[in-house]
């Protein structure tokens, strides 16, 4: 018996095997709180369940078939993609520009870095509520000043065409601090000798930016784009609070549609789970594509 125990202990003591023991806690936590619920969601998608757990029945692929024909779900997916395409490039762009502008460590720049990060720590719900009062077409302060200038105020969150762009701008304002901070760290890691060499060769600031800064910080840039993309696809808080999905479902995003099917009357948790499972697959696929593209570019630049 003790021979067997000795053999097991010796096996697990080897560095390459001990490593698995070290990552075991993290794997357990991830499995219990991510992987198992994910599989559970997928399974629930095959049932018809409501929030009271009464009338549970097996539905087969009915929920998935219903999803394909659901024009409101497809509309939500389109809106989510629209929001992401508006928000992600702009936010990363703004973060990049700002981080370059304040990359020198003067006192003013340090002050700016702190101030620009404040919206990030604020709750998106609170930001949404305040912005919707400011931009209210009837009693908002922005519309008041526009009226004083003689211009008819647009109704921002209630205007079918402007609603989503307004939410995107608000999100950029709220979150660009994150991108700025990450890229700032990356920019400060670029060795100064590269810039000096470029100066001596007579390169302008713009050329230095495009041909030194960007290639050097490309990994950080790729990371920002990817995480921002994944986060944008899951947008819910700020849209729900400002527009509620309207007008006429023009700003309804996928997560909000899932919420409206599963957690408000009639509480169709089965259908909501089916949408979630399919949406997970879509985001995973798109993220993979983005990641591959970024990696290729990275390889090309180095």
């Amino acid at each position: 018996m003790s021979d067997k125990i000795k053999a097991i202990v010796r096996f697990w003591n080897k560095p390459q095997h001990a490593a698995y023991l070290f990552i075991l806690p993290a794997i357990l936590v991830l499995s219990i709180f991510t992987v198992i619920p994910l599989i559970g969601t997928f399974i629930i998608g095959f049932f018809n369940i409501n929030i009271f757990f009464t009338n549970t029945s097996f539905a087969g692929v009915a929920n998935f078939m219903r999803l394909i024909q659901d024009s409101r779900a497809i509309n939500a997916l389109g809106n989510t993609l629209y929001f992401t395409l508006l928000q992600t490039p702009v936010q990363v762009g703004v973060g990049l520009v700002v981080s370059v502008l304040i990359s020198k460590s003067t006192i003013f720049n340090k002050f700016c870095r702190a101030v620009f990060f404040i919206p990030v720590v604020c709750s998106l719900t609170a930001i949404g509520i305040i912005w919707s009062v400011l931009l209210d077409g009837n009693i908002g302060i922005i519309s008041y000043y526009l009226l004083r200038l003689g211009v008819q105020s647009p109704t921002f969150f209630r205007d079918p065409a402007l609603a989503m762009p307004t939410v995107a701008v608000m999100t950029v304002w709220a979150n660009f601090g994150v991108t700025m901070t990450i890229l700032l760290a990356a920019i400060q890691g670029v060795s100064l000798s590269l810039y000096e060499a470029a100066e001596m060769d007579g390169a302008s600031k713009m050329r230095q930016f495009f041909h030194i800064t960007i290639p050097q910080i490309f990994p950080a840039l790729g990371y920002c784009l990817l995480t921002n993309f994944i986060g944008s696809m899951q947008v819910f808080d700020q849209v729900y609070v400002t527009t509620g999905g309207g007008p006429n479902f023009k700003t309804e995003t996928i997560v909000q549609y899932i919420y409206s099917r599963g957690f408000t009357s009639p509480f169709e948790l089965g259908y909501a789970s089916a949408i979630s499972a399919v949406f997970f697959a879509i985001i995973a696929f798109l993220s993979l594509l983005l990641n591959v593209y970024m990696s290729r570019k990275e390889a090309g630049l180095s």
Partner: protein
Amino acid sequence: MRNNRIKKVLVGMAAAGLMITAMACGNSNLNNNNNVGNNSNNNAVNIEGEITTLTFWNGFTAADGEILKDIVDQFNKTNDKNIVIEMDVMPWANFNEMLPPAITSGTAPDFALMMSTDLAQYVENGALKAMDDFWDYEGVDKTDFVETSLKMGSLNDVQYSIPQQVQSFYLYWNKDLFEAAGLDPDIPPITWDELAAMAPKVEDRENNVAGFVLPNNNHNILYSWMRAYGGDLMNRDFTESVINSKENIAVLTTIQNLIVNELSGPKIISGPEMNNMMNAGQLGMAIQGPFLAAGLETNEINFGVTTIPQMNMTEKSAILEGVGFVIPSGTEESKVDAIYEFVSYWNSREIGKRWSVEAGFPPYLKSVAADSDVINNPVVSELIEQINFAEPIMPVFSKRRALDSDIITPMVEQMLQGSSVPELLKTADEQINSLLK
């Protein structure tokens, strides 16, 4: 060798202990955030003959919630049955998200308040106890309740909810804006036609003043207008849609004309935004529940409130909604009497009067309505009259919320953007029929 091994074992145990504590701490944080009711349930002390603790959930987060809290505190101090009520408040939307899973997992509160429009889906899923034996409780007089207030909480002839408050929808008008428009400030529109005629006059684009608006997320105004003219959404047993009728086409066309052609108000606006406009003195007329009065008074708006417009004065109709006491099905039988004690305390003349006068809601108890303080209150006395003919709509219909947000909201939004009314009603008709299937 030996010391080394002991050391390793000790280090291993310490690491495992740390890991487990860390996971447990993380877990309980999650629990505390997600289970509001859980904490108070654990405190329930029920030593025989001693304190009975009741957990109580409701959605009164605004100013009227403070009056409610005060009344509960008063009950806790003055009741002679050793009952202590622990109240938990959350917005109604959160309430409807948290109550069903709480009922399913056995952590529901002992009793709660529930909006009349949400009652049906809970009853359909067997989540609530019947409260018919409340009428047998000492000191309770069923005849004191106005008939229609009881109808709101009754499904299939079983009483699932005892009234806590009732409300209908009233016409508020801004007297200063009426005067500026050349209308008599003391004469509000009595019929819907009069309203449609007055709204364009009150509207003043240059000063950002609107005459009348139709909110896109609260359809009681639309339903009131439709029903006044004999139209409706569904037939009496909710099996078929009757929305595509010529009466409804006429009503919707009038509203569309008012907003789209005559520009009496913004096209897309939500209920809270309508309240804000009224409170800012930028809206001539608004149709809303009783609570708007308090905001208007705080903002010093020179306003009047009256019965909702009608088609004519002989066939009056109005919508009745309310909030009632409910008991989740998992509550222990031994606590029901204590709950009834509070419910009868609430529905007494003294507390009923306090709620009416302080919170501004019309009374549904005849004894309170006859009280001189209530009669002499100018706002409340206007509100009482309508309660006598107001009726709940769709009380047993459990898909009300889905109907409102999935079918009627898009219909209203498209109508106010100018789409063809007959087409919209036809689409709504098909959608309602498939919802009813």
